[in-house]
Every structure is written in C-alpha cells, then in structure tokens.
C-alpha cells in the first residue's frame, strides 16, 4: 500500500499532503501525555509490521495494523503513522517523500474513522466487542484499499477498475487483520483494559 514516487498527479500529492498536515496537527493537539508512550510503541509496531514479510506459500504478506492503531489512538494515529512512514521511506525506500502525505492519509484516515465507528463498542460484552474488533481490522484495510484506488484515479483509467483490483488483492489481508485485531483486543481486555478507549 505504499504508492511510489512519480505515479501520482501533482494535485493529488498536494491535497494528500494538506490533509495529512491537518490530520497530524489535530492528532498532536489531541495526544495527551498519558498516551504518548502508547503512540510511540504503536508507531514502532506499524514501522516494523509492514517490514516483516511472512513467507507462506508461494508469496509473502505483511500486516498493516492501521485498524488497531486507530482504535487505540484515535486522531493520534495520524502523527504515529506519518512518523513510521517517513522512517520507512528514508530507511527502506518504501513509498517516498513526495508521496508521504498521500500514503499517510491512505493509512491514517481509515484508522480515525474506525476509531469513531468502533471505539464505543469495544468495551461492551464480548459478543458485541469481538465482532466489532474484527470489523475494525477488516474495514480499516478495506478503506485504505479504496483510498489507494481513489488516489490512483487520476493516473490510471477508471476508478472502479482500479478500486476493485486493489480491494480484491487485499481481501486476504483484510481477513487476517480482522483476526489479529480480535486477538489483540481480547488480550488487552484481559490484561490492561484501561488502554482501551472510553475507559480511564
């Protein structure tokens, strides 16, 4: 999901950058001291997660984790993800510097949307919370795939074609992310429920 440099049209890059800057500044405003360490750790997790290729079968796959990052951080997902993407761009040459804004929006906007959709449900009883966690992980990747399709709209032909391609290609990742999010949330609920949104 890292869009390379030189693919996107200028207006897309600029509006991506503007949106990312807006998101990051809201995120920094909303990030209080208590969640600072958490944001750092999740940023590091995101940084490493897209690096660890799990080679199973003929190909390999990696996690994105933006659902769970959004769920735990809310708006602070923006700065966390942007820092991780910046470091990935500098150190591994994934994505790029000019596309940093667009890539940040692609990953972080779904994270924030998932926060608003699912944060109220995650402290409910398990029969509600677990499907919500799954949907959170699933939908975060789904929306990211849609955003990839949307940002490629200007350089490739039809939005529908590109979006279908990206979404179907990411279908396995969506299911995996859903399952991983369920595991993480059920673990956090047992070990330190105060980490979850809405419980202080």
């Amino acid at each position, binding site marked *: 999901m890292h869009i390379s440099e030189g693919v996107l049209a200028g207006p897309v890059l600029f509006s991506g950058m503007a949106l990312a800057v807006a998101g990051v500044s809201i995120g920094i405003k909303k990030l209080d001291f208590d969640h600072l360490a958490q944001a750092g750790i999740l940023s*590091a997790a995101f940084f490493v997660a897209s690096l660890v*290729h799990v080679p199973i*079968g003929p190909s390999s796959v990696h996690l994105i984790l933006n659902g769970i990052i959004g769920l735990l951080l809310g708006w602070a997902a923006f700065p966390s993800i942007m820092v991780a993407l910046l470091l990935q761009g500098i150190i591994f040459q994934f994505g790029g510097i000019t596309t940093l804004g667009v890539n940040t929006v692609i990953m972080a906007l779904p994270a924030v949307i998932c926060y608003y959709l699912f944060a109220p449900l995650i402290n409910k009883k398990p029969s509600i919370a677990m499907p919500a966690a799954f949907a959170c992980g699933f939908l975060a990747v789904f929306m990211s795939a849609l955003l990839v399709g949307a940002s490629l709209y200007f350089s490739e032909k039809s939005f529908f074609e590109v979006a279908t391609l990206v979404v179907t290609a990411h279908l396995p990742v969506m299911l995996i992310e859903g*399952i991983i999010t369920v595991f993480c949330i059920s673990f956090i609920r047992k070990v330190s429920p105060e980490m979850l949104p809405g419980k202080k």
Partner: protein
Amino acid sequence: MRSWQLIIVTIMIILFSLAGPVAAHKVMVFAWVNGNTVHTESKFSGGRKVKAGEIEVFGPKGQLLLGGKTNDQGEFSFPIPQSTALKIVLTAGMGHRGKWIISKDEIINASSTNATSPAIENATGEKMTSAAGAKNTVIRPPATETTLSTDEIQQVVEKALDRKLEPIYRMLAEAREHKPTIADVVGGIGYIIGLVGLAAYLHARRQQK
C-alpha cells in the same frame, strides 16, 4: 478451544498463501548494456518477478523512446535506441513504480564497439569462435593471427569481455538493491523512541512553566 485455535491458524495460513501482489512494497528494475542490446530485469522487493509490467524508456529530455511489457521472467530487452543516457521506468500497477538510469558513457562504450561496422563484427565473431576452438586442439601458426587488424582485435576482445562480464553486470545491478537489515530496523525504532522522548521532554517543560 484447541480445535478452534487450530481452525483459525489454518484459515490464516490459507489466507497468507492467497495474498498476491499486495506483499510488495516497491518494485525494482535493473538494466545493463550488452552489445547493442539493453537488458532489463524487474522484480518486487520480495524477489518475485514482475510479469507483464510496463516498461517505458525515456531519453534525456524526457521524451518517450519505446515501451514494452516484461515476460514471465520479468525480463525485457531492446536495442539501444540512441546514444544518450536512458531512463527506464517500470510501472507494475497499484501505484508501484521503479526506475533505472543508464548513463551516456555506458551506452557509448557499448555501442562504439559495435556500431562501427556490423560486417566486421560478424567476421570477428566467427574468427573468435574458430580461435577458441583452435585453442583446445592445435596451436595455430602465428601467421594467421597477424592478419587481424588492431581494430578487429579490439572488437574481439571487447565482445569476449562483454560476454564474460554479463553475469557480473547483472550481479552488480542486483547488489544495488538495498535490503532492510536488522540495523535499519533497530535504527528506525530508535528514532521513534527518541521522538517520544523529545515529546515527553517538551511536555515536561511546558508543565514546569
């Protein structure tokens, strides 16, 4: 509970193996010159070959010279279109794109030996094979060697060198790929910890005031 976990793990393994081109973060294209031909090889960062990726070759002013698609091995070859620097751009769909630049020197070095006269090239090619064959059997009288002009000898040598060096060109091209190392990963995490520390410090200062 056990069997339930087993089912989940199995499903995940199946899903992992289904995952297609998503896995790639970036695509890379390598190119090297051999004789009159430019060879390119394209692959994703995981090492998979790019099949049917679009290759476009640009001149120094950004004008499109030629284009084509990679084969199943991720390879695409084309004759040198002009003696200038070439920019080779690979587009592999879903926002993946890679590029490689061949310098003018590389092209000129390669083409000057071949472009002079194709007739001589063919002739020397034949001579070279016969010379190679002769080396294994009998030592030729030195008289036949002297019939080669300096030009021809130069061409024979360069052609042989090209052939011998091709795997080395390829290795060098591939070695330029930067694979993430443990040091990179630890360094990146270090940066993040540093940023958290910086934010905590700023926060503490603000509270003191």
